[in-house]
């Protein structure tokens, strides 16, 4: 049996300290926590940075490093620093060494990096080892070369290689959410379907149970399946809460693709052992013919400046969409005339909060608010151009009348200056897989000895 302690769904979301202590006393074989995902958007991968505050990350990670020392087992984090790019891994290593100095313990740290050279990936694309997943964006060599960061998602094999070094702590770059939990059970010969399925159930911590924000759960893997035990007070797993977790953020609730194969849970059986614990058996792992890893990449999509104005005059609230459309037409023309730019160089969007800002053309409700927030978004090829067009947009946002006949209106600005620079924006550029011969081909493993 292999016992995995999962403190929470992600480092930075906090965990229940009493429950964590219960987990330590249960003598886990490994402590595993996820450090990120794509869910916060492309900017983090584009810039290679974490979304969470360094202070929160440090406090929570220090607690887990202390737990590791008490439990005398390895501690592993996957997708370090939200995006798992090499710079985010370096940030996490820096925090880890700072804590190690403060805690005064010698440590062996295995650092697994998932970052890919865009020129290498472009070459692989030419070699036809890269293929698209569903709804993948169109790519060519120049799209790939323009990515500021590309990562490959590590699977169980790469985490196992890091654990094989005998490290106390494994800091991994981008990895599948499940790999960090499944790696050790698979390595020790537990049921493969059970290992991947239990890992999927556990990857968000106590989200598979009641009291989901408590975080801490324990998963016991064996040669037939797995048992999940939430550890916080008031946290209970039931066959319903556990099986329902397969729905979460999965486009298919029965099939999960991983490096080297896929998990099929369509015949899985969920059984309540008592009011707190659930046992699952009957999950299947189907190995694939070729070993593939998923790629994620982000590239620059320009620079943005935004403005906010509030429309409160009922005449303007009623005609907000017409007002916004007219501003886009007139301000775009002014930018072309005064700056000599073309439509390839910039765009102006206006989102109307209280009207259609969430769903745009898909909105089905037509109702009249008493006020509407207008957000003007300038996206341009350079930071300077974005700021300049933001300044062209400013007088329209302040005074633009619906018709020339009416008195000049003045709308509510919240700030001075009204323009706010958002800096560089990024977009996801890859939803592809790459075939590799050896699982370590796309990854780098480094050992740091401290103290």
């Amino acid at each position, binding site marked *: 049996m292999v016992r995995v302690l999962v403190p929470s769904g992600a480092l930075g979301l906090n965990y229940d300290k009493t429950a964590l202590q219960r987990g330590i006393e249960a003598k886990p074989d490994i402590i595993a926590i996820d450090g990120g995902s*794509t*869910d*916060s*958007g*492309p*900017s983090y991968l584009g810039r290679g940075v974490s979304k969470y505050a360094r202070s929160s990350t440090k406090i929570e990670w220090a607690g887990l490093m202390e737990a590791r020392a008490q439990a005398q087992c390895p501690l592993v984090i996957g997708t370090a620093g939200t995006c798992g790019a090499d710079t985010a891994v370096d940030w996490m290593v820096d925090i880890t060494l700072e804590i190690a100095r403060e805690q005064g313990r010698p440590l062996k740290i295995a650092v697994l990096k998932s970052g890919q050279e865009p020129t290498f990936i472009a070459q692989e694309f030419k070699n036809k080892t890269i293929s698209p*997943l*569903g*709804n*993948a*964006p169109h790519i060519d060599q120049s799209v790939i070369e323009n990515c500021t960061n590309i990562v490959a998602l590590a699977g169980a094999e790469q985490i196992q290689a890091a654990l094989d070094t005998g490290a106390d702590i494994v800091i991994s770059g981008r990895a599948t959410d499940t790999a960090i939990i499944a790696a050790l059970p698979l390595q020790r010969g537990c049921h493969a379907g059970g290992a991947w399925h239990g890992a999927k159930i556990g990857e968000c911590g106590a989200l598979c149970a009641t009291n989901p924000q408590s975080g801490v759960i324990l998963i016991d893997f064996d040669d037939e399946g797995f048992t999940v035990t939430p550890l916080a007070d008031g946290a209970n797993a039931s066959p*319903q809460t556990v*099986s*329902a977790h397969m*729905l*979460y*953020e*999965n*486009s*298919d*609730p*029965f099939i999960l693709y991983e490096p080297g194969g896929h998990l099929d849970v369509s015949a899985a059986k969920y059984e309540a052992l008592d009011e707190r614990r659930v046992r699952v058996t009957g999950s299947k792992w189907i190995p694939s013919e070729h070993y593939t890893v998923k790629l994620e990449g982000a590239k620059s*999509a*320009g620079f943005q400046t935004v403005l906010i104005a509030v429309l409160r005059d009922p005449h303007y609230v009623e005609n907000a969409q017409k007002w916004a459309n007219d501003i886009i037409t007139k301000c775009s023309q002014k930018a072309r005339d005064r700056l000599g730019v073309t439509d390839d160089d910039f*765009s102006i*969007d206006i*989102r109307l909060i209280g009207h259609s*800002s*969430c*769903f*745009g*053309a*898909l*909105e*089905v*409700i037509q109702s009249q608010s008493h006020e509407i927030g207008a957000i003007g*978004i300038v*996206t341009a090829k350079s930071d300077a151009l974005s700021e300049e067009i933001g300044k062209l947009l400013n007088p329209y946002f302040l005074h633009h009348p619906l018709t020339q006949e009416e008195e000049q209106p003045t709308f509510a600005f919240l700030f001075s200056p009204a323009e706010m620079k958002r800096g560089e*924006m*990024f*977009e*996801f550029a890859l*939803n592809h897989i790459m075939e590799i011969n050896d699982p370590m081909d796309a990854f780098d493993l480094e050992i740091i000895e401290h103290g």
Partner: protein
Amino acid sequence: MAKLRTAVKKIRTKNAGPFWLTIDIFCEKPGVYDAISSSIKTEHIAQLFQTPVENIKRFDISDLCVVKFSLPRPQTQGCRHDSDMHGSSYAALVGELEY
């Protein structure tokens, strides 16, 4: 005719990666599940999201009393035209379906 949101326990939408959106309709009771599963057609979701019906995957999961749909995101997550980074607000749009 009633709004879907008044009939079910919960509607959840969420990114399934940056390129896909997944919709989970939790019906809670078998009677509600049977009614929703038979009356909400895949075409209704296609129409709501203005996407071809063949783009939509559908799962009727009677054990959980859940009807699930997955479809390409209306806009890729975080692109210039996206306005719901986590895909969670689309649940309110699904809740407006008449059944």
